[in-house]
Structure formats: structure tokens, C-alpha cells
């Protein structure tokens, strides 16, 4: 048990979770009180002692699954759940035997049609145990797993799902429900039914994933498996290489992040420095001390709010990054006295109006991507031309109160750089910053001219993930 636990904790640390020594001891203490057979209680007990941040829960869950649920039989007790499942499987076996007899077909496995039929029934009834059994059968049949084959779990998952064809299954389920309903379904009901089935299918997918994982662990061993499943935490995901799933996770993480940042910035401003003496208030306070001004009161300082001018490259290579940054900047609009934003590829366009009066930032960002007029010649990044146009049209907007932020990888396709624009801007503006979503080691390789632009900036920051973006915004305000 001790070995198991320490291996588990090492793996958690490898996955990036900050587990301290006391937390480790707490976990050891906790498992004394909760029997390992009570799987879910055991999991929550470990979670409560080891994971102190909700966004890390997913990573914890994955590691837990690998370490505890798929251990050999010595850890699996025949609890009720297990029994009923076994029974169900036996029952299914019999059913299938019957079917096979009837159809007179040979073969030692279910035919695809039978499997689809069983699956369909399981989903229709929303029967969890049966769904789980079906997930198992499906993996056994379609994933084609071979011991020692060096492919990731996603490959097997893809193979299984492709064969199950869940989309058409969903349609079938909907048709069936519609046919069974006493009265024709209203739109609302239809939507609700569909969502019910979608969630059941999601559940099935999770079961399939778990089953694949279980088999892989059996094949390769825990440590190797945990390593392949290791994923960066949401705040560490690289913007440029995020998968679609990770994008969604980042989008979700950015909402609370903005709230947190806004609260922190406002608090910082208020507490930072005392203002001049507030005479009236001091006199009023002195009354309770018999007219002695024992408790001097100060005015709150008028907070300085910077003006922001954001100039973002939205060409394909860095679009995701620019989107998140705009998202964050506009969510924090209240913290700045004025925000103006420009986007460019090889032409440049102002997009401030698209955010104005638009409460839904996602929609605004979408408009920016579709409506802004940013292509001048061929739609390949040309920083030099974009900056020149920016200077000609909008240089008057830059004043000593404004902070100018350039976003981009400075990959200029070997065009002229026109870095004098930054030099001039730095003279007029309070600060000029550059955020680069590329890892520092790639800077100035190939057509990247970041250091040429960088010489005129007050700071050039590597900004590849939410953590770095957050610390920059904090620094800014």
C-alpha cells in the first residue's frame, strides 16, 4: 500500500500538481479511515487531501484511474456492483448464444449488427451497467488491441468509435422516441430528449475510454501508462499547439481568471498608497476623541488607469493566441480607461467598435476574425506594411498615457521590417510591450525578427500559456 501511494504521489507531481509533504501525510492518514474497497469515497478522500485547485481535478482523476481502478485482482473485491455486472455479462452471453443459434451463424463473437442492436437498447433504456458491458464488448471487438503495440490510446478510441457510428445511432434513438411519444414532440421536448441521449452517449464514450485504458495498463504497466496519459494542466497548455479540447478548457479557464484578475487589480489600486489628508473626514472623526484629531483620515488616491492600444497579428499561425489575449483585455476593460484594438495580417484594421456595446466577447472575437479588413496583398504576415499603415493613420492616438502592446511572433516572411514605427511609438507612448507566443528558443530563427522590434520595446515577453498571460496582465495594471 505504501509503495502504491508513494508511486501515485510521484506521478501526481510529475503531472504538475503541487503536492506538499504535509498533504502527502494527510493523504496517508486519510486512507486509514476509508477502506480502499469503497472506490469512490477513497477517490474523494485522496482528492480532498491532495488536490487544492478545482482545475487540477481532471489530471488527478486520470492518474487515479490508472493507479487504482485497474490494479490486479488483489484490489478488486467482489462488491455488489461487480457481481451484477458479471451476471449481466453472463446473461448477455446467453442471449447472444440464443441469437446465434437462431441465425445459425458461426463465429465466436457478436456480429456488428447484434452489437449495435444491444448498444441501441442499452442507450434507449439508459441502463448504466449494460452500457458499461457494451463498452467492454465494443472495445474487445473493434479496437483490435495487440499486446506491445506502440500506439496511443486515442488510436484505439478512434477505431472503436468509428465502427460504432454513434451519430447515426443518435438519429435512430431520436426517431424511435418520436415514434413512441403519444403526441408529437414540441421543439423544446425534442431538444431535451436529444440532450438526454447525447449525455448517455458521452457516458458510453467515457466507459470506452476507461476500458481501453484498463487494457493498456494491463499490457504496459502502470508507470508507462501514466506517462503516456500525462497532459499539461489548463494553465500550462501552449496556445499555439492546443487541441480543440484543450481550447475549450482554456476558454472555460479564462472566465474565472478575468474575474480574479479584475478583483486583484481593483484591490491593489485601492490599497496601494494613501492619498492626501481628507480634512473634513478627519475633523468628523476627531469628534469622538473630544476634538483631538487622533485619527487622521486620508483621501483615496485617484487610481491611475492606463490607456491600452493593442495591435495584434491574427494570421493563422498565432490566431489562437491573439484571440485569448483580446478576450482577456476586453474582459478587463473596466481596469483601463480606454482600450483600442487593431488587428493585422498584411493590412491593418481597427476593431474597437466590434467590442463596443457587445457584451458577448466570444461573438465579438468571431466578428473580428470574419469582418476585419486585414488582407492587403496575399494574406501572409507583413509586419512592416501593417505597421507603416498603422503609423500613418493612427499615430495621433498614441499619447504619454497610453501603453502599446504588440502581439505576434514577428515572423515577417522576409519583408522589410519598418521597425522605425516602434521606435517612434516608444518615444510617444508610456510603454511599448511585445508579447510573443513562441518559445524563446525559436526567437530570431528563420524569418523571425523579434529582436529587431524588441530593441525599441520596454519589454518583450514570452507568452505561451495562460499562466504567462496572467502574470503579464497583472504586471501591466
Amino acid at each position, binding site marked *: 500500500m505504501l509503495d502504491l501511494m508513494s508511486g501515485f504521489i510521484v506521478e501526481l507531481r510529475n503531472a504538475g500538481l503541487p503536492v506538499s509533504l504535509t498533504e502527502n501525510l494527510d493523504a496517508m492518514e*486519510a486512507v486509514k479511515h*476509508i477502506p480502499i474497497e469503497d472506490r469512490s*469515497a477513497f477517490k474523494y*478522500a485522496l482528492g*480532498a487531501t491532495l488536490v*487544492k485547485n478545482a482545475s487540477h481535478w481532471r489530471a488527478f482523476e486520470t492518474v487515479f484511474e490508472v493507479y487504482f481502478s485497474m490494479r490486479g485482482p488483489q484490489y478488486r473485491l467482489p462488491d455488489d456492483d461487480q457481481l451484477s455486472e458479471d451476471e449481466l455479462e453472463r446473461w448477455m452471453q446467453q442471449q447472444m448464444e440464443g441469437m446465434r443459434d437462431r441465425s445459425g451463424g458461426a463465429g465466436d463473437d457478436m456480429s456488428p449488427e447484434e452489437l449495435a442492436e444491444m448498444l441501441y437498447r442499452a442507450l434507449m433504456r439508459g441502463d448504466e451497467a449494460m452500457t458499461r458491458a457494451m463498452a467492454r464488448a465494443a472495445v474487445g471487438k473493434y479496437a483490435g488491441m495487440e499486446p506491445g503495440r506502440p500506439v496511443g490510446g486515442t488510436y484505439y478510441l478512434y477505431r472503436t468509435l468509428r465502427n460504432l457510428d454513434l451519430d447515426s445511432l443518435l438519429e435512430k434513438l431520436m426517431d424511435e422516441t418520436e415514434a413512441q411519444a403519444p403526441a408529437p414532440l414540441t421543439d423544446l421536448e425534442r431538444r*431535451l430528449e436529444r440532450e438526454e441521449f447525447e*449525455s448517455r452517449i458521452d457516458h458510453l464514450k467515457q466507459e470506452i475510454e476507461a476500458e481501453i485504458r484498463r487494457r493498456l495498463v494491463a499490457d504496459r504497466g502502470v508507470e508507462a501508462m501514466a506517462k503516456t496519459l500525462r497532459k499539461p494542466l489548463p494553465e500550462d497548455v501552449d496556445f499555439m499547439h492546443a487541441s480543440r479540447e484543450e481550447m475549450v478548457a482554456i476558454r472555460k479557464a479564462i472566465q474565472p481568471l478575468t474575474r480574479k484578475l479584475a478583483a486583484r487589480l481593483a484591490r491593489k489600486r485601492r490599497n496601494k498608497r494613501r492619498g492626501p489628508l481628507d480634512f473634513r473626514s478627519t475633523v468628523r472623526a476627531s469628534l469622538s476623541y473630544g476634538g483631538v484629531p487622533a485619527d487622521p483620515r486620508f483621501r483615496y488616491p485617484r487610481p491611475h488607469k492606463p490607456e491600452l492600444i493593442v495591435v495584434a497579428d491574427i494570421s493563422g499561425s498565432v490566431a489562437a493566441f491573439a484571440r485569448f489575449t483580446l478576450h482577456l483585455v476586453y474582459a478587463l476593460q473596466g481596469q483601463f480607461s480606454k482600450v483600442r484594438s487593431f488587428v493585422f495580417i498584411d493590412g491593418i484594421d481597427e476593431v474597437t467598435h466590434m467590442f463596443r456595446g457587445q457584451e458577448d466577447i466570444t461573438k465579438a472575437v468571431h466578428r473580428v476574425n470574419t469582418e476585419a479588413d486585414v488582407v492587403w496583398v496575399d494574406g501572409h504576415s507583413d509586419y512592416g506594411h501593417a505597421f507603416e499603415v498603422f503609423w500613418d493613420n493612427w499615430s495621433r492616438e498614441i499619447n504619454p498615457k497610453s501603453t502599446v502592446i504588440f502581439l505576434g511572433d514577428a515572423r515577417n516572411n522576409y519583408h522589410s521590417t519598418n521597425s522605425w514605427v516602434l521606435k517612434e511609438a516608444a518615444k510617444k507612448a508610456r510603454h511599448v510591450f511585445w508579447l510573443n507566443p513562441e518559445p524563446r528558443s525559436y526567437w530570431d530563427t528563420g524569418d523571425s525578427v523579434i529582436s529587431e522590434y524588441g530593441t525599441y520595446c520596454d519589454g518583450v515577453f514570452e507568452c505561451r500559456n495562460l499562466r504567462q498571460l496572467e502574470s503579464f496582465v497583472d504586471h501591466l495594471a
Partner: protein
Amino acid sequence: MADHRFGDVASVRDELKEVEYLADEGIASVVFLADRLQKPILVEGPAGTGKTQLAKSVAEMTGSRLIRLQCYEGLDEAKALYEWNYKKQLLRIQAEKASDDGSTDWDQLHDDLFSDEFLMTRPLLEAIRAEDPVVLLIDEIDRVEVETEALLLEILSDYQVSIPELGTMEARQIPLVFLTSNNTRELSEALKRRCLFLHIDYPQMDREKEIVLTKVPGISENLADQVARIVRSIRQIELKKAPSVSETLDWARTLVLLGIESIDADQARETLHILLKYQTDIEKAAKELAVEAR
């Protein structure tokens, strides 16, 4: 120490159910563990998911007194821990003068002044000194500044309060402590390390349905089911503020009052303002619910 409050995880769950709080596996396990390990629970999650209610329900279930400390910006030890009643102390000194011309021993007077009589207990100290079983709820801990958090560390890890004039006061019994946070800022590592962490999210559909059934009298099974489904559907839309459990309950109560037996799209749209608090959210949800399913 004292014997444990709960037998096992399942009994926590059942007992909570008796006081009309439907706990899921995670909540029950953590509450059970908090009692066994004698550690505070840090409860985090979106607004309106029953974080504060959990503490109240646990208090009710164990028959303990609930002591509540509402945190806010600017909270200090005089309001959280203890304060000397200086007015009474002044009176005491003056009474001394009046009686016999200040001839009493100063040490004697000094000891008198800083004694229990002049100590005003605030929630944290009160929880420590309580004779009867108590549940201490420190609400919205994320509202205080990072520096103030440090006030809590002693009480959270050792269940004691040090008062310079009196010495250390140790807890007569270990209270169950709940801290809630809406996560508007990152809490300090030191605080997190001392607590068990519990994240309460929006409930699964089945659980939400049960919550509606227990909390809203006179609601039919069918309506509760519909309510839970529609709320789940709305939560999937990207909104400024997703409907919370308490808003779901408000909505269900409204529907019962209006005598609605089963919701159709129009009725749902007309009562959406109970569920959602932003005009843009309402418009968006109304549009989504009205459209033909994808």
C-alpha cells in the same frame, strides 16, 4: 480525543438527507474525513451551489450550534478573534481611583484588567471556547486580504488562539470548521495546506431533480424532471452566469405557484428571468430554447 461524530461515509450521507441536504459521494466522504482527521474543509465552487448550506445542514444534523464569521475586506482580529472591552476597563480604573485613592497594588489591578471579564469574544474565539458542540463557518474567505488570512492559520491547524495577555487558549472540543470561497482570488498555500479541499459544482441532472423534489413542496415528479432537464440544457449554453441551484429552486417554486403542470417553450421563456439575471443571457437562452434542436 473525543469519539467520532460519524460511523461511516454512508451514514453521513443518510443523515444529511434527513435534514434535506442531498450530498453526493464526494461531499459525504469529505465531511466524514474532516471529522476523522480533525481538519477544516475548504469548500469552493460557483455561487449558489449550496456551500454555505452544507455547513448549516451539518450543524443541524449533528445538533451543534452554528457560529458564523462573514468575511469582508478590512476584517481584522478585533472583529474575528477577540477584543478588549476598553470602556469597561476605563470604568474599572476610575472605580478604583474613586474607592481608595489609588492605593491598590498596580499588579493586582493589571491582572484584573486583562481577565476574562473584560474580554469580548468574537466568532473564532467563541468557537474555541464553546462547551457545547459547534460548527464554525467562515464564509467567503476569499474576500479578506492575504495578510488577514494569517489570522486563521493558528486556529485552523492547532485549534488554539494565543492572546498575549492571557496566554494560549486551547479548544475544549474540536469544532467542525467550514471555509467557503467563491474563488475570486487564489488563497495562500499555507491556508490550503491546512484544509481538506472540496469543490462543489453544479449537480448532475438526477441529483438536481431530487433536490427540487425535496425542497419544493407540492411539485410533481414530472415537473421536477422537466425543470432539471431544462436547467441542464441552459447550463450548456455559454452564459455570463449559469443558473445556480438556488435559482433552479426559485424557478421550480414559481412554476408550482403558477399552477403549471408541464412546461412548454413559451412558459419557459416567460419565466426565464427567474433563472437568469442578465438581459443578454435571457435573450440568448430564449433564442436557444426556441430553435429547432440541432
